[in-house]
């Protein structure tokens, strides 16, 4: 029996070569696109899963509220938790805490700025065991640390790093006890160095036990099979035990446990480490990928049933010689399995060949990622099995229903098929509209007036060697004076953080304006700048004055933006100038000397926030922003380099262009838009195949009618027109479905942005026209052949 089924399936696939090829093509398209999407989706879902027992690891989130109003909702919590948990909660297998910092590292006369260091508690490796390629991870004593393979290569070249000393921030000699293999790209722990935080304790920067004020990432790893709820209860018990100061201020605090695997998806939490992905975009992608595949199967079913018309006699004969409906179904199942497995193989080969190209094209660090082995293939096989089952069941039912009086089969199922093709068309239109809206939003964001001018601004990482230097301000000034003496350079300033960058954590501050009765409750960002701020970024000074050139003129002077002005309770810029404000909990009087216009410090996903500038040189290295005339850019860059090298002999010049840097923030949107473009192309291709199948089906059904019309004198063009009329009426219906759905979907998507483009009518018009033209073309091409055929041919077979 099996042999009969398989032989028949193979032979009939070969016999109807054209149909089989079209089917195969459609399935390969659907499966390949699905496969690549799954690759990316698995990557996103596998964040941190390479850590041993990652499913038992949680991060402790911290929430503080005052009279019901949340003040802080973040990933950082008190270091005191570390010891408390370690000593009092035995169900926790291991726990650790960590602090992230970009530091300056010195080894043999070379400075390396912006090195990602994670300061960790002892036994941190019990929570996050790293793959050591040399030495061991040891944080048990001060001044011990480990380094990643890549960083080791950059720092030590060919020398064996273990046992060597590197100097961190000019004051901490750290001995390297081991080298760890670079972590996969899909981790939230992006550090290149792990160093014992006991170094700080030894230096007297902080106490041995840690306080209860916050600022650290706390992680716990639960023992296997132990419920986390009980431990959480105990952890929350610490609030009363150790944090009575909160109650004195009418504040309440609570902790929660965030599973490690969710870290990557959770947004809206302060102080997160590592980049988050937009969860809803990811879900959208999954839905789209599934739909693409779903469409491919719809086609398979449609084409098969269309073909069944031609094959109905064969199927009837099988039934006549004793095949039951189950037998006939097995037959179709076999064909479906063969075709799908074949398509699957081709898709998988394509996937294997183009995996890396895909990663490069979409700029995703997939090559360096941890992808759990077998997952992709398993998902694929499961989905394909489902697809085969459903498509062959539908096909089987169709075959069973087929009237089997020899030679007099009736055509049924046309309505359902129309419905399916309508859904495909609707999906294609929805994808097309979505893609266009995504592009529109991106171009809107890239072109919107930011309130500052980034074109022509070069951002340099501040020289790390200045950090411990008491003369840093003077040295900066010397560099600035010289560079501005060249004709191509217009203005320069230092900054703690620059546009296109989320403000560094410690710049978050609250300000009070007692005169206006404004206490606090809003987070401000306090940046640093000198008198070059206004001209470098071309910010408008709305009232008051710029900083003076000399630092002495500016002690305790601040500039504020309009948003800060409003938060502080001033009516207008003029009113604020000359007034005093205070940092919360600090008695230093800060005089507002000027008010500048609001501008976008970050991408348009985020609203504008209140900002304050002081005139202090950055606490850490910060950035130098320099406005340059772009006419002779290359020459200017060469000048910049030589001036830099003369002034900062120990630091490499590290620069980027501010506008490019700013647009980096739209990387994720750009990536999704690229995805959508491809999926749209695929879905349209697949839908066209579906339409084609439907036409074939329809033409077999109306073969005789077309012949008769022609005998009665209709021209081929008239016949094509007639067929188009039939088809296009349901394409119109698919528009009616697609427009509101895509309008709703894109409206929801745009909610992610504080500033958004509008859903113009022409987006819908263009998408509609495009799909409409493709449909008319397909219908006309295929029906032209039938219509221009000699009518006698169609009528001859009775």
């Amino acid at each position, binding site marked *: 029996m099996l042999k009969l089924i398989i032989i028949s399936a193979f032979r009939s696939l070969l016999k109807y070569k054209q149909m089989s090829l079209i089917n195969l093509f459609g399935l390969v398209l659907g499966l390949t696109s699905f496969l690549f999407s799954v690759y990316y989706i698995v990557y996103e879902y596998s964040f941190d899963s390479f850590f041993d027992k990652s499913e038992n690891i949680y991060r402790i989130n911290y929430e503080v509220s005052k009279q019901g109003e949340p003040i802080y909702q973040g990933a950082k919590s008190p270091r005191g938790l570390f010891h408390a948990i370690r000593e009092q909660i035995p169900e926790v297998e291991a726990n650790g805490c960590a602090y992230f910092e970009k530091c300056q590292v010195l080894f043999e006369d070379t400075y390396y700025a912006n090195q990602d260091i994670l300061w960790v508690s002892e036994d941190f490796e019990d929570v996050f065991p790293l793959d050591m390629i040399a030495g061991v991870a040891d944080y048990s004593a001060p001044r011990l640390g480990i380094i990643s393979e890549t960083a080791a290569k950059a720092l030590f070249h060919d020398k064996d790093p273990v046992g060597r000393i590197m100097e961190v921030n000019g004051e901490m000699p750290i001995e390297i006890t081991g080298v760890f293999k670079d972590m996969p790209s899909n981790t939230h722990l992006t550090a290149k160095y792990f160093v014992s935080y006991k170094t700080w304790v030894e230096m007297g920067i902080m106490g041995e036990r840690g306080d209860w004020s916050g600022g650290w990432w706390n992680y716990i790893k639960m023992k296997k099979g132990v419920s986390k709820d009980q431990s959480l209860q105990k952890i929350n018990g610490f609030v009363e035990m150790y944090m009575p100061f909160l109650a004195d201020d009418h504040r309440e605090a609570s902790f929660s446990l965030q599973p490690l695997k969710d870290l990557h998806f959770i947004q809206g939490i302060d102080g997160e480490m590592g980049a988050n992905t937009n969860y809803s975009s990811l879900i959208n992608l999954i839905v789209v990928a599934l739909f693409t595949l779903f469409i491919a199967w719809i086609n398979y079913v449609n084409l098969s049933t269309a073909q069944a018309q031609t094959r109905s006699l064969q199927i009837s004969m099988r039934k006549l*010689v004793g095949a039951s409906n189950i037998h006939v179904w097995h037959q179709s199942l076999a064909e479906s399995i063969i075709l799908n497995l074949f398509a699957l193989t081709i898709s998988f080969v394509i996937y294997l060949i183009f995996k890396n190209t895909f990663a490069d094209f979409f700029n995703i660090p997939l090559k360096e990622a941890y992808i759990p082995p077998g997952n992709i293939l398993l998902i694929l096989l499961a989905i394909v099995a489902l697809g085969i089952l459903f498509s062959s069941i539908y096909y089987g039912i169709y075959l069973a229903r087929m009237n089997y009086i020899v030679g007099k089969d009736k055509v049924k199922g046309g309505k359902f098929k129309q419905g399916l093709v309508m859904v495909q068309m609707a999906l294609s239109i929805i994808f097309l509209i979505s893609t266009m809206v995504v592009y529109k939003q991106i171009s809107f964001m890239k072109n919107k007036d930011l309130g500052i001018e980034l074109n022509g601004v070069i951002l340099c990482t501040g020289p790390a060697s200045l950090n411990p230097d008491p003369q840093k301000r003077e040295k900066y000034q010397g560099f600035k004076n010289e560079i501005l003496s060249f004709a191509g350079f217009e203005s320069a300033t230092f900054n703690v953080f620059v546009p296109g960058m989320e403000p560094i954590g410690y710049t978050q501050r609250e300000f009070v304006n007692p005169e206006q009765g404004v206490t606090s409750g809003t987070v401000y960002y306090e940046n640093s700048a000198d008198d070059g701020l206004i001209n470098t970024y071309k910010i408008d000074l709305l009232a008051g004055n710029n900083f003076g050139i000399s630092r002495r003129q500016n002690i305790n002077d601040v500039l504020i933006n309009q948003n800060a002005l409003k938060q502080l309770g001033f009516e207008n810029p003029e009113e604020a100038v000359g007034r005093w404000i205070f940092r919360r909990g600090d008695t230093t009087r800060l005089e507002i000397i000027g008010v500048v216009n609001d501008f976008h410090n970050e991408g348009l996903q985020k609203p504008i926030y209140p900002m304050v500038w002081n005139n202090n040189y950055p606490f850490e290295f910060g950035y130098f922003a320099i406005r340059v005339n772009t006419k002779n850019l290359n020459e200017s860059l060469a000048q910049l380099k030589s001036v830099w090298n003369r002034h900062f002999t120990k630091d490499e010049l590290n620069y980027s262009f501010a506008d490019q840097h700013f647009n980096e923030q739209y990387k994720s949107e750009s990536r999704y838009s690229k995805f959508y473009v491809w999926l749209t192309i695929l879905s349209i291709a697949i839908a066209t195949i579906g339409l084609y199948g439907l036409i074939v089906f329809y033409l077999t059904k109306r073969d005789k009618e077309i012949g008769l019309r022609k005998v009665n004198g209709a021209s081929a063009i008239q016949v094509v027109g007639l067929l188009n009329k039939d088809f296009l009426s349901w394409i119109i219906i698919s528009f009616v479905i697609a427009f509101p759905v895509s309008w709703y979907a894109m409206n929801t998507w745009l909610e992610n942005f504080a500033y958004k483009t509008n859903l113009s009518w022409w987006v819908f018009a263009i998408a509609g026209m495009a799909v409409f033209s493709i449909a008319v073309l397909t219908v006309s091409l295929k029906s032209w052949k039938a219509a221009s055929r000699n009518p006698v041919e169609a009528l001859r077979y009775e």
Partner: protein
Amino acid sequence: MIKLRNIDRYFDSKFQRTFVLKGVDLDVEQGEFVSIMGPSGAGKSTLLNIIGLLDEPNAGEYYLLGDPAFQLKEKKKVQYHRSHIGFIFQAFHLIDELNVYENIETPLIYRNVKTKERKALVADLLDRFNMVAKKDLFPSQLSGGQQQLVAVARAIVGNPKLLLADEPTGNLHSEQGEMIMKLLKKLNEEGMTIIQVTHNEAFANYGSRIVKLVDGLIQEDYQVKK
């Protein structure tokens, strides 16, 4: 064996009802060889299809092998087709994807006959029909007469009680037609009940009885004189 009583078969179009069969009564005994004749459109194929359970009458009663056979369930019909009825058609209707051997073997596979037995039965028939050399060919590689031979082999391989043939010689030239008719006659002599539709007077006479159908009515029904 077959008992038809007052069989009506009609088709409704928008404005009228067209009768294809009107009050047909027919009895066929085991071992008979009946030839149904009549002008084109008289309803011969329709009658044969009803007998073969490929079509259902709109009114009347039908008993096959003593059992009521109108309004049967699909499953039951498959059972009848598997074990009691064989078909031959004017256009042969072999399964294109299968070769000669497989075409003959297929009904046995669907009947769950064991491999060994299947081999023996098919080999037997191939031998008997002189088709051994052609067993690996596909229908499209055979002449009409050969195709019809395969169709007959396929129809009788399961040893049905009833063989229905709708113009089995219609697409064959006379020499091949005669060969098929001789074969049918032989099968009948071996005990198989056969009902054929034919336009050919001479071929009709191979049977034992002739039924003339005109406009859905039985006009004549007589034994062939030997």
